[in-house]
């Protein structure tokens, strides 16, 4: 079927199978491999991207369901001059990663969380990231990074 999805402000028009998952579309059709596949069962959050500004798990969305939407992946966060998004900057500053596999999903989930919840506290960050797993268990610095990003955005 023919679909039309804006990915990181770039219009993508493709003919895809109805059963194609959004994460496959992003990785294989568009060629953006920053979005990782983790559990493939909507548990781990590694595949989190934004659809029309809201975080979703792209392993559990059909490309067809996102037809006509605007999708933002980790590749679309930084400015065209290479300047990091405030959440990326905070993850770097606070070393919010260990092996890095969960990081794109964590960052995208955090962008959506911060946009929806101004003035997050630590409990709010921990609860708000319940859909994202870090198997290195590096949560401490991730939470610090998201708190810092939340504060910097509201300044």
């Amino acid at each position: 079927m023919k679909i039309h999805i804006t990915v990181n402000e770039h219009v993508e028009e493709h003919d895809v199978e109805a059963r194609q998952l959004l994460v496959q579309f992003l990785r294989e059709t568009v060629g953006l491999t920053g979005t990782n596949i983790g559990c493939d069962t909507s548990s781990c959050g590694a595949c989190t991207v934004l659809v029309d500004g809201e975080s979703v798990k792209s392993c559990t969305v059909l490309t067809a369901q996102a037809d006509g939407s605007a999708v933002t992946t980790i590749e679309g966060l930084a400015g065209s001059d290479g300047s990091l998004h405030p959440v990326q900057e905070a993850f770097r500053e606070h070393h919010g990663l260990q092996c890095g596999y969960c990081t794109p999903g964590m960052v995208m989930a955090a962008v959506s969380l911060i946009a929806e919840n101004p003035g997050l506290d630590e409990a709010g960050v921990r609860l708000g990231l319940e859909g994202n797993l870090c198997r290195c268990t590096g949560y401490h610095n991730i939470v610090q990074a998201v708190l810092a990003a939340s504060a910097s955005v509201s300044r």
Partner: protein
Amino acid sequence: MIPASFEYLRAASTAEALSLLAEHGPEAKIIAGGHSLLPLMKLRLASPSVLIDVARIRELSYIRDLGDHVAVGALTRHCDVHRSTLLQTEVPLLAHVAGVVGDPQVRHRGTIGGSLVHGDPASDLPAAVLALGATLVLTGPAGTREVSAREFFRGFLETAVEPDELLTEIRLPKMDGAGWSFQKFNLRAQDWAIVGVAAVGAKAGGGIALVNMAATPVRATAVEQAVAAGASVVDAASAASAGLDPPTDLNASAAYRRHLASVLVRRALHEIETRPSR
């Protein structure tokens, strides 16, 4: 994991969805957020030959004050139910429960109607609408009919919705400031409840419903009767699993579930007593 092939159709209105259902019959499945159906399809536990996407039917996404009750369109997403100030004020149990389903990403996609028609006894919202005494509106080729939440859940993943019908609206009686509680016991964030309890105070009908204690969400009738007869919280809660045959699975044995049900009902009844009502 990739689902088996299917034909994908999109409906722009309730009428179009019903006509596609009539055309394709029981081979077709309705998809809204897809967060119950797609995991089943990826595991090939479900392989419908036609998917009818109803997620863009705007006329079925709303939350309206209708005097003595609040009407919620079946395609209203969990995040929108959770954030609704009308529901937070008039049906706070439902607003709360919508905010504990899955995780934020799931709540951005999942819909209240999708959760109810999936009929999973381990899900949170079915027990909430059962405790609240909600009415579900089904729309089919012959028009609409109303089914009480008590008659809606028929068996494991089985509801009163006929193959040619859609769940279109959920009508929730206002709670009138009654106390309420939702207890969800799980071992990991975002897991389904091993056992859960949705309960409302007498002013809202005194309904108490259990999650994951049977093949369907069920009312804890023995507890409701004991509370109405003036029993103490501890005595009433001890009847939590009366007449029930809870499942044994990887998470818990039936005996553990029975114990958990009485503990969680006790906590729920305490919370109803202590939560300030208006």
